[in-house]
């Protein structure tokens, strides 16, 4: 396979995506923005699931926390500067991930899955049951953050195309960052731990510290996605950190093919578009009322017959993965 092509393909895709606003379809632009945000979210989880071998069932906690952080940091009716609210929200997520990581990383396997869920549920009830963030009805972010350099406005987030480009940029940046990280000695160590934790420990690797670093980075990246999601519609609700949300992003990772960054992106696209298509009453009429039946069956088919996800399917049709981060 032409390795030059595999190098360029991601850029080609990003370039094509950057042109999308030319289509001038507000709805599809907003939908695509959301897909890209979910792609960031899915990549952040893939770092844990696919590369570190830790299956988190509570990843929505970090996603939602960033959204709430923005909602609570921003003054009620005025705009907040992106320059400090963005890093602050991400930092809060990273910190929360660091603290929870220290606790949850004591467990393994199914216990890890469940204890991550427990922490997410705790956070869910903090926002659902207290007045802190508007309770179960959620809270608004009335004005979108501003992004200014001196007096000059760099990006106007009220403008859909500009917000879209920002999201696209951050998606590409996340991809690049993870690509770099996973290609580094740190990334190799993570993979080593995933394959055989005991051996790595015997070799003298500080396994816990590596895992904690990965967990924290993953939480912070999920925070980027959560921040952007909160900015997009200006509304956060406890439901964004519910286990359904954690489940959905896990679906995206597996559907796309875990352990490949582009798989996470493909998974996010596929998952959102599937929901979009199956629930479309205009196409399916009365059957659309039971669209979740079709969705459920598709998910089951993937679990049974597509263990490598859609990325694996692409590979099977004679194409190499676009950019296998671990082995280049």
């Amino acid at each position, binding site marked *: 396979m032409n390795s030059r092509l595999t190098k360029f393909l991601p850029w080609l895709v990003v370039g094509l995506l950057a042109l999308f606003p030319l289509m001038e379809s507000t709805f599809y632009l907003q939908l695509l923005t959301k897909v890209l945000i979910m792609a960031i979210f899915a990549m952040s989880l893939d770092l844990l*699931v696919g590369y570190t071998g830790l*299956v988190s*069932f509570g990843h929505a906690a970090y996603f939602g926390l960033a959204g709430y952080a923005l909602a609570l940091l921003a003054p009620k009716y005025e705009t907040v500067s992106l320059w400090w609210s963005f890093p602050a929200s991400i930092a809060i997520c990273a910190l929360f991930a660091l603290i929870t990581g220290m*606790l*949850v990383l*004591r*467990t*393994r*396997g*199914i*216990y890890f*899955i*469940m*204890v991550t*869920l*427990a*922490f997410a*549920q*705790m956070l869910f*009830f*903090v926002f*659902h*049951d*207290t007045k802190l963030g508007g309770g179960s009805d959620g809270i608004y972010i009335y004005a979108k953050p501003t992004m200014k350099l001196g007096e000059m406005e760099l990006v106007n987030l009220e403008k859909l195309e500009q917000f879209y480009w920002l999201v696209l940029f951050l998606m590409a940046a996340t991809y690049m960052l993870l690509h770099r990280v996973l290609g580094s000695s740190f990334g190799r160590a993570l993979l080593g731990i995933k394959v055989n934790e005991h051996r790595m420990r015997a070799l003298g690797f500080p396994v816990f510290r590596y895992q904690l670093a990965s967990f924290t980075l993953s939480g912070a990246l999920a925070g980027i996605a959560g921040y952007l999601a909160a900015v997009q519609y200006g509304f956060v609700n406890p439901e964004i950190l519910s*286990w359904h949300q954690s*489940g959905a992003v*896990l*679906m995206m990772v*597996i*559907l796309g093919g*875990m352990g490949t960054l582009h798989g996470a992106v493909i998974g996010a696209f596929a998952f959102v578009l599937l929901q979009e298509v199956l629930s479309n009453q205009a196409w399916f009429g009365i059957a659309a009322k*039971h669209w*979740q*039946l079709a*969705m*459920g*069956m*598709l*998910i*089951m088919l*993937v*679990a*049974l017959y597509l*263990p490598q996800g859609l990325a694996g399917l692409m590979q099977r049709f004679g194409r190499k993965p676009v950019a296998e981060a671990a082995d280049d």
Partner: protein
Amino acid sequence: MDFAFFLIQLLNGLQYGLLLFLVASGLTLVFGIMGIINLAHGSFYMVGAYLAWSLSSMTDSLVAAILLAVPLTVILGMALERLLFRHLYQRDHLYQVLLTYGLILVFEELRSIIWGDDVHGVAVPALLNASIPLTDNLSYPVYRLAISGVCMLLAAGLYFLIQKTRLGMMIRAGASNRDMVQSLGIDIKLIYTLVFALGVALAAFAGMINAPLSSVTPNMGSQVLIICFVVVVIGGIGSVKGAMAASLMIGLAETFGQVLVPEVAGMIVYVLMAIVLVWRPEGLFGKA
């Protein structure tokens, strides 16, 4: 809270704990012995409740409904194991999560198509439809106590089955070493099918006998799902004893939590779970 009410709340907590055990017992079996994460456990619970409702309105008797429905759920469990779960034993837990998440959606929609989206009630059997007075204005429904009794019988039965019977021995051996058991000429596939069917039947049975108490509603399964996982994980996966201890613990924590610290009642279970797992990462009675 005076002493009498303290005792009543204690009873409430224990009784609720036993209910939780009933729902979670099937999960810990499948979870522990087969190593299957089954998110659709709640769906089997729901199927049981709906079966109890539809069959008892046909036969006018909950007991008859249960007798009819249990074999149906066993068949359902065997079919699911043969057609779906069998293919996933050797694979990562993730695929089980994926498959059973899909199953939740399928069961929920099938329920909607077959039984509709209404709320239904199932009458308490006439024989048990009474109350025992506790204070001047509070009494305790006999049916709740009867369920507690059933739960304890079930717990004892499960314990006996796994620890003392030949089948239980094969099950335990199969859990720790699949290949060895197979090489001894024991039909491990059949055992797995049976255990899975038992797990499904237990969940459905919980839904059935709980139906008169809880009413039969859409999405009732997903409400019990998470709490069941909490029970199983706190107790230690695969441990019937642990599941019982964890159920009672959660029952008490929830009961007293709602009364004493209502502001944080919603998260109390999860705090408990986090504490237990940080303290004992393999659960109370789990094997490290």
